[in-house]
């Protein structure tokens, strides 16, 4: 009996831990998408954050410095993305894919220069890693984003930039400036999410370590109907799938052999597809999502 309770507590604990990178990234994506900019680039922004966090934490022995640097790097990459999608009106999905490729190429490239390896950075000692701070930090950000979007004038600008950019424009607010800020903020958050992968959930950066989490974060915010709290719960759902995935490895469910690890590892991806397919009907994206704003 108490063994079962232990198992449940363990799974609950790892669900919370594994949901943190998704929470940060999904909140970032939420801000950007509510402002009307699709953010497929989350995956790449996270990857950049993961590398920079590992490198800076390694050099300074300070996880806080690592996370701060990851935030800035995410913001920098995001402003590069914003330059193309907001200013130059590039197709958002195409440019986002390009940012992801850029991040997938730049991170091992830099890793080679700093750590003489394209596959992973040097292992971080315990004092350079977070023990539990991101666990609480993520939920503080959920509260902050929910409050900011819902109850501040700034949040109203973001929502109008995504729903009725023309109205915002005639009220004298520069739509594209709001979108720039929203995309850069999403870069800060996605960078932090990446940092939690390399200096919280593991002890080094490794090549392509985001493995689709940026896209899962997108799926979570669609499932959460572009609202902070439901999005956060969707992240928990994906965290749970991930926790089960790790828990089930090597476990005998039927017959005499454990379930092949390859089948277990695809569980979170499978859940993502099912969740997206199951809920789309009632979900509505911000009206101006994906459309560049051009003042006439």
């Amino acid at each position, binding site marked *: 009996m108490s063994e079962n309770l232990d198992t449940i507590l363990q799974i609950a604990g790892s669900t919370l831990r594994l949901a943190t990178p998704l929470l940060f990234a999904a909140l970032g994506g939420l801000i950007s998408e509510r402002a009307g900019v699709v953010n497929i680039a989350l995956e790449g922004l996270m990857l950049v954050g993961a590398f920079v966090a590992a490198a800076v934490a390694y050099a300074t022995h300070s996880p806080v410095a690592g996370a701060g640097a990851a935030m800035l790097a995410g913001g920098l990459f995001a402003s590069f993305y914003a330059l193309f999608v907001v200013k*130059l009106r590039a197709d958002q*999905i195409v*440019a986002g894919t390009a940012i*992801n*490729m850029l991040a997938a190429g730049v991170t091992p490239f830099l890793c080679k220069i700093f750590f003489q390896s394209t596959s992973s950075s040097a292992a971080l000692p315990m004092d350079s890693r977070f023990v539990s701070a991101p666990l609480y930090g993520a939920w503080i950000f959920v509260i902050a984003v929910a409050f900011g979007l819902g109850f501040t004038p700034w949040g109203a600008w973001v929502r109008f930039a995504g729903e009725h950019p023309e109205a915002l424009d005639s009220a004298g607010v520069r739509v594209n400036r709001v979108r720039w800020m929203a995309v850069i903020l999403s870069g800060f958050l996605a960078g932090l999410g990446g940092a939690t992968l390399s200096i919280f959930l593991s002890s080094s950066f490794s090549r392509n370590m985001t493995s689709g989490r940026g896209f899962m974060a997108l799926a979570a915010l669609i499932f959460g109907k572009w609202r902070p709290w439901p999005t956060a719960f969707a992240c928990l759902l994906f965290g749970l799938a991930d926790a089960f995935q790790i828990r089930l490895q090597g476990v005998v469910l039927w017959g005499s052999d454990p379930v*092949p690890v390859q089948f277990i590892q695809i569980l979170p*991806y*499978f859940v993502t*597809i099912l969740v997206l397919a199951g809920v789309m009907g009632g979900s509505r994206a911000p009206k101006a999502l994906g459309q560049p704003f051009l003042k006439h």
Partner: protein
Amino acid sequence: MRDSVWKILRFLRPLIAVSAGLAAGLLVTALAGENPLHVLAILGRSAFGSRYDFGMTLFYATPLIFTGLSVALAFHAGLFNIGAEGQLTLGALAAATVGICFPGVPAVIAPFLAGLAAFAAGALWGAIPGWLRARRGSHEVINTIMMNFIAVGLSSWVTLYLLKNPDSQNPETQAVAPSYLIKHLDFFGDAPLSIALFVALAAVVAIWIFLSKSTRGFELRSVGQSEGAARAAGISVGRMQILAMALAGGLAGLVGVSEVLGNATRFKVGFSPEYGFMGIAVALLGRSRPLGVLGAALLFGALHKGTADLDMETENITRDLSLILQGLVILSVAADGLWAWLDRRRSP
């Protein structure tokens, strides 16, 4: 006079974009402490320097033609196929599976059978996100990415548990029966280039005919231009989306022909240096036109060969430079506003 110069410039837009992307990429190499001119020299020599080198360029270009066509075809239907990587993985696995399980098939039809299996497996892997988009409204970008990861898991399981090569430590299947192997092009020496190149060229022609001459192709393109208008004209939008993704997946699956039947003789886990993602750059640069895809595939084939050699010949540059170059080229092609801005500056 100025007008005609401008027209030529517009026509050369993809070339200008590539040059801009390349220049930015060379800047990256300079930051890494290499001499950009030296890098450029190695790139050129290693892509076109000899028959062997050029053969390698064509060898890399062949799968890129398939994946580039795959992404381009989906673009025409208004869909973004980031799933070519998973589709080609399953295509190659299917070709290998048929070649291992049916060794008795005569050589006249064996490659066709394996090629058909590759196309079908890729088509299935593309049709699933197509169906999800058409019938459940869920976005194909997220679903195709998820399908990529599922393809990796599924193919490694089949490889390790069902078809494992007992003589090797590597995650690879047994070899296909010799009757399945297709002809090597000896002109290019040791480069593993096969007549799969001609299959790719045939696919270029076939897709060109399909898109510009057939009724189905016209319907597919009209769905891409405006779903509402297509629906009003009585076209079944959902069915066209599923068809487009299935065809796109099938095209990507044909990479199995060049890889398994023309090169490795077996399925190797992780054989693709992300041909599927390169296909996105190829399609964008080729503006989704079949002939454009062919040209862009040759260019990226050359870049891929070049960066692979840079990895060996320089201190700090790795083959990841190829990804950086692709990202930069895509961005410079996609920056519509930049071209519009130049346009506006020109008019008084």
